[in-house]
């Protein structure tokens, strides 16, 4: 709704005020490009700034102005900037936020701009996350799988088999182990805490491991929602853990990942499914002597496959210096630089060469576990589905929340996701 209001007002405003053409030629002969980065953690900001400084030092004719943006309201900010013709030249965002801008003509098609080296270095499955229609509208450069962060002492003392990327737990094994663990932990303590403040992306992305897909593109290009047995595996496991087995507390369902950390550090929960980058918070905040380990998320029929929405770098269509911007991206995303960015953000690089860096394969802080599942990361199921934000906000989020808390059963979840969901999507696909 918010986006539609913005789009409508934008249209009226453009009609009312007209557009003014900018002066493209730099006065002093130095091209200045504005790079809006959403990096926020100190190490990450430092890495970004250093790379910009290195570029600026060696390219006096093309200078990059680094601007720190904010994940908060980034979509509205960019939309306003695009409509006003004041967008940054180089834009940092997440791939699942790009569809509107790509289809709206705000982002440059990078196919002819990017060097072959960069195109070849990033796998096709990652390019899929930024491909809309025929064009590529962003370079996916950082991604994070969801992993199980576990209290090492509790798990080792319990005697359960520790999963590895080669031999992960199955979802049913995970459920059984959680039951055994909870029994040995005693009252008030749980095997797992699910922070499900945003339940849709977790359910859909982990759902790929069991072969769930939910969104199906038909021959005519239309997308419909279907909820199969495979789609039910992950939501069903979470539901059973919370409602039936009581191996996961109901109280964390409305929490964000950070909110579960105090309970995790206190030994109240043995495992917490979190994004890979949360390791930084754990490394910083864990009390002295606290031992933690990173385990792969459980696997289903599709193995360790997961959906991800990588962080991306795009170029504004209105930028008069697309070639220069692409040259900067080429430099910024060289393998050694991608490694620096990945380590700064505690995430995984998409680039094959960067991912091979030994520093990303150490057992320390669980890097090796993440790197091992990297090749199983796929575009998030709803990546390019138009109408997904509304489906998520109006239909799926409340449905999953009620299902996980036990307020509705699986049949009602299915009805809402499919019947109500398809009604929403149909509005976006009328021809």
């Amino acid at each position, binding site marked *: 709704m*918010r986006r539609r*209001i*913005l789009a409508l*007002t*934008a249209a*009226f*405003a*453009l009609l*009312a*005020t007209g557009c*003014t053409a900018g002066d493209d030629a730099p006065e002093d002969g130095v091209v200045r490009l*504005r790079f809006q980065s*959403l990096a*926020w*953690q*100190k190490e990450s*900001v430092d890495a970004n700034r250093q790379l910009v400084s290195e570029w600026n030092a060696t390219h006096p004719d093309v200078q990059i*102005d*680094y*601007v*720190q943006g*904010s*994940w*908060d*309201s980034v979509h*509205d*900010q960019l*939309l*306003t*900037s695009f*409509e*006003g*013709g*004041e967008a*940054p030249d180089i834009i940092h965002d*997440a791939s699942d936020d790009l569809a509107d801008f790509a289809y709206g003509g705000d982002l440059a098609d990078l196919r002819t701009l990017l060097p072959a080296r960069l195109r070849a270095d990033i796998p096709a499955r990652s390019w899929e996350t930024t491909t809309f229609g025929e064009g590529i509208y962003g370079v996916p450069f950082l991604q994070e799988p969801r992993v199980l962060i576990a209290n090492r002492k509790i798990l080792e003392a319990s005697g359960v088999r520790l999963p590895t990327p080669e031999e992960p737990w199955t979802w049913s094994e995970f459920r059984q182990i959680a039951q055994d663990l909870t029994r040995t932990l005693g009252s008030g303590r749980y095997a797992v805490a699910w922070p499900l*403040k*945003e339940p849709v992306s977790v359910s859909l992305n982990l759902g790929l491991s069991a072969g769930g897909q939910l969104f199906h593109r038909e021959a005519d290009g239309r997308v419909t929602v279907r909820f199969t047995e495979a789609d039910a595996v992950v939501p069903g496991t979470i539901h059973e853990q919370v409602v039936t087995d009581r191996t996961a507390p109901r109280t964390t369902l409305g929490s*964000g*990942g*950070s909110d579960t*950390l*105090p*309970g995790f*550090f*206190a030994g*109240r929960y043995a495992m917490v499914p979190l*994004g890979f*980058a*949360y390791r930084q*918070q754990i490394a*910083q*905040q*864990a*009390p*002295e002597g606290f031992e933690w380990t990173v385990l792969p998320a459980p696997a289903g029929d599709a193995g360790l496959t997961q959906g991800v929405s990588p962080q991306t770098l795009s170029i504004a269509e209105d930028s008069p210096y697309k070639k220069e911007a692409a040259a900067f991206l080429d430099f910024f995303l060289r393998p050694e630089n991608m490694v620096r960015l990945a380590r700064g953000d505690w995430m995984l690089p998409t680039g094959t060469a960067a991912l091979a860096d030994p520093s990303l394969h150490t057992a320390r802080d669980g890097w090796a576990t993440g790197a091992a599942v990297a090749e199983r990361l796929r575009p998030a199921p709803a990546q390019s589905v138009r109408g997904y934000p509304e489906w998520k906000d109006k239909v799926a989020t409340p449905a999953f929340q009620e299902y996980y808390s036990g307020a509705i059963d699986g049949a009602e979840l299915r009805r809402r996701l499919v019947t109500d969901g398809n009604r929403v999507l149909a509005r976006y696909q009328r021809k």
Partner: protein
Amino acid sequence: MSALRTSRPARCGQYLALLAYLVFLALPFLWLVSTAFKPAPELASLHPTWIPKDPTLDNFRQAFDEQPLLRAAGNSLVAAVAAAVIAVAVATPLAYVTARHRGRLASAATGWVVISQAFPFVLVIIPLFLILKNLHLVNSVSGLVLVYVVWSLPFALWMLTGYVRAVPAELEEAAAVDGAGRLRTLVSVTAPLLVPGIVATALFAFVTAWNEFFFALVLLKTPEKQTLPVVLTHFLGAEGVADLGPLAAAAFLATLPSLVVFGLLQRRITGGMLAGAVKS
């Protein structure tokens, strides 16, 4: 008068209710202060305490190290003070006219003021952006001040109109009878009585501008121009992940100017609020 008297138990109940409300209002701020001084392990404790066991200034150090808080506070201060001064300067004569010359125009203006408060930011931001761009006022504190003035003007006008109405017109008539001219009456009789209202209104405009985030986020393009609320969001990551300690420290510092201004002007504000409470 007797109707206002209440029994002792009832009065105790009122005080208790007031106390509970004050505690409710103060809790978030006290928690913010407590969080700002806690070291990382205490922030991650399952049993949080109100008073940090091992208070530290590390969060403040980190906040200043990582973000240009002073520069951002300076920008916020300039924008907020300018917005408050201009809003009051524009709203005061308008309020006087609206209050003293009641008619269809004044009613229509009041109606428009009320309606304008219902506009969501998101509805006006793109037209506003385009207008400011054509005026070359994007990425300038002047442009932001202009937006803040326009945004706070309706409510400032509404507030001040009430204060003007609270000043008995008979006083101005008496001054006129005593031979004072229009300007002299306004300056010597009406204006002094309006001071509390003007201060309260200015404070409202100041706090509104000081705390405003979205316009500043969209309109200011370069780091040198960014205001404090925008810089505060740099401690937040995707999906609500936060660098909690430095964020709390910076947020605590960000609340101080408002508290100081409130503290300094409290008596005048209270006077302003009471003015007009009793019908003449």
